[in-house]
């Protein structure tokens, strides 16, 4: 058996495919390049034809304008707060429920779980009218809680974490119980640390999802000071300032936090997303 002979040459088909893929990848990133360089041009250079592929004179004035004319920092803080608190609540409530569904025997648990996960695919946006009326009744229009609670309702966290709890051995919980640990202690001291990778993946995925959410935040945060970064940035499109470089600077400010998160936590995205997909 001389199986391990010369390393196999790439087939022509494979080479062409990969060349096409690299080309598209670069084209796909081009709009972001254009966004970033445009934001550094002055208001006349940005609309110049033929265009400058690289800014001739660099200016940061568009960024200065964004932070001076718009409460951009406040928007960023709003986004951070809403995404952060939503995600913490999703993790706390979701991990408790997921643990119960995975390890504790109680009546009707299968039926309740199925009802929970049948909500997974329902976007909250389609129920925006009744949801908005509820928020109104609670006096939560223009408030953080109005933006936060509907994000916690979907059972995605429960679904994702249950998978992680299911793969932990039952014996661990039984041993802790025999040692006299109560259920809560078993959960917080023994089980939660084991599913840490799951919590990490859920944190990243949920945080980014809420951060990039738009429609619900648009409806709830009506005052200028209560807008989130995405909603606030989008208002620049209707802004009286006609300078395109200014709008692109705003969009860059909105893009940068998530770019950083992605570069730092890339592996969590893969593990989190695949944990959400079902394999047979």
């Amino acid at each position, binding site marked *: 058996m001389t199986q391990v002979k010369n390393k196999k040459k790439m087939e022509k088909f494979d080479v062409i*495919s990969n060349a096409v*893929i690299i080309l598209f*990848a670069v084209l*796909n990133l081009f*709009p*972001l390049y*254009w*966004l970033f360089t*445009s934001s550094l041009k002055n208001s006349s250079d940005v609309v110049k034809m*033929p265009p400058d592929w690289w800014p001739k004179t660099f200016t940061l004035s568009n960024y200065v304008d964004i932070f001076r004319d718009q409460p951009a920092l406040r928007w960023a803080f709003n986004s951070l707060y809403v995404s952060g608190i939503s995600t913490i609540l999703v993790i*706390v*409530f979701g991990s*408790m*429920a997921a643990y119960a569904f995975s390890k*504790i*025997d*109680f009546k009707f*648990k299968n039926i*309740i779980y199925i009802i929970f*996960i*049948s*909500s997974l*695919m*329902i*976007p*909250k946006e*389609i129920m*925006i*009218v*009744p*949801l908005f*009326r*509820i928020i109104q009744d609670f006096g939560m229009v223009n408030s953080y809680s109005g933006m936060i609670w509907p994000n*916690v*309702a979907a059972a995605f966290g429960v*679904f994702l974490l249950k998978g992680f709890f299911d793969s932990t051995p039952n014996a661990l919980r039984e041993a802790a119980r025999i040692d006299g640990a109560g259920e809560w202690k078993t*959960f917080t001291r023994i089980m939660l640390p084991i599913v840490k990778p799951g919590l990490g993946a859920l944190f990243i995925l949920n945080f980014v999802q809420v951060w990039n959410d*738009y*429609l619900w935040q648009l409806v709830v945060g009506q005052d200028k000071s209560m807008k989130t970064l995405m909603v606030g*940035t*989008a208002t*620049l*499109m209707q802004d009286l300032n006609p300078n*395109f470089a200014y*709008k*692109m600077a*705003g*969009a860059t400010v*909105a*893009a940068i936090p998530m770019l950083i*998160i*992605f570069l730092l936590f890339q592996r969590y*995205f*893969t593990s989190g*997303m*695949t944990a959400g*997909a*079902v*394999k*047979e």
Partner: protein
Amino acid sequence: MKIRNNFIKENITGYLFILPQMIVFLAFLVYPILEGIRLSMYRINYQNERFVGLDNYVSLFNDPVFFKALMNTVIFVVFIVILTVGFALFVASAVFDKNAKYVSFIRGSYYIPVMVSMVVMSMIWSFLLNPANGLISYFAKDMGMGTFNLLGNKTTVLPIIIFVTFATNVGQAIILYIAAMIGVPKDLFEAAEIDGANRWQVIRKILIPSVSSTTVYISIINIIAVLKIFVVIQLLTGGGPNNSSVTLMYYLYNNAFKYNQLGTASAVGVIMFVITLVLSVPQLRSIIKAK
């Protein structure tokens, strides 16, 4: 006695653990759905509610704009999902067995637009496509195609939106496919190699069938994501020109928050809810079966 006590205790503990999630779930998901169904049968004027039965649905089906919205949404779903699945399969099958650095480069470059969000990407595209001073219009003029107003033209506006949405979101499908393909057992490929299969045959006969459950998953999450397509419409076209790019979600939003037609908007929501529910059945079934 002891066993019975334990049983009750276990039950109570279980319910206490799911209680917080349950309350939020009931208050902000189940109740809005029921309330939405109820509201869809009322004519609502601020505090005044008048029961009108199915009138809102009847008037929807008599509104040409609603039909346009429904048609456009269907067109978007079909084309975007086919493009996404097709292109993601192509990319993932070509790169999944290459070295890790390369895989991570490809994954990253296609996923970055997903990360920076539809809002930001829509803003860039609106600049690129701007008829007066966008880069794309410049190229068109340069090549002698005259003034280009792709978003202001009824025949080009839909393809442009399809392309922008597809290009922004395909990264997610690529990540999922690459992960699934890396998980396909190696001996399948080795066996095929011994039989002298070329790469195209391996992809078609082994790889694609092996990731079929991922294909179902990707299709469903993308169908549902496109069903509620909104940002790109609001920022690029505002539903225009002349309602030619209006979608269900945009129609719902306008009825609710611009024209104050809450009953009609709720009816659109209920219709979308039913569509979502029907579409998610296969996925739910596989989750339940997997238990």
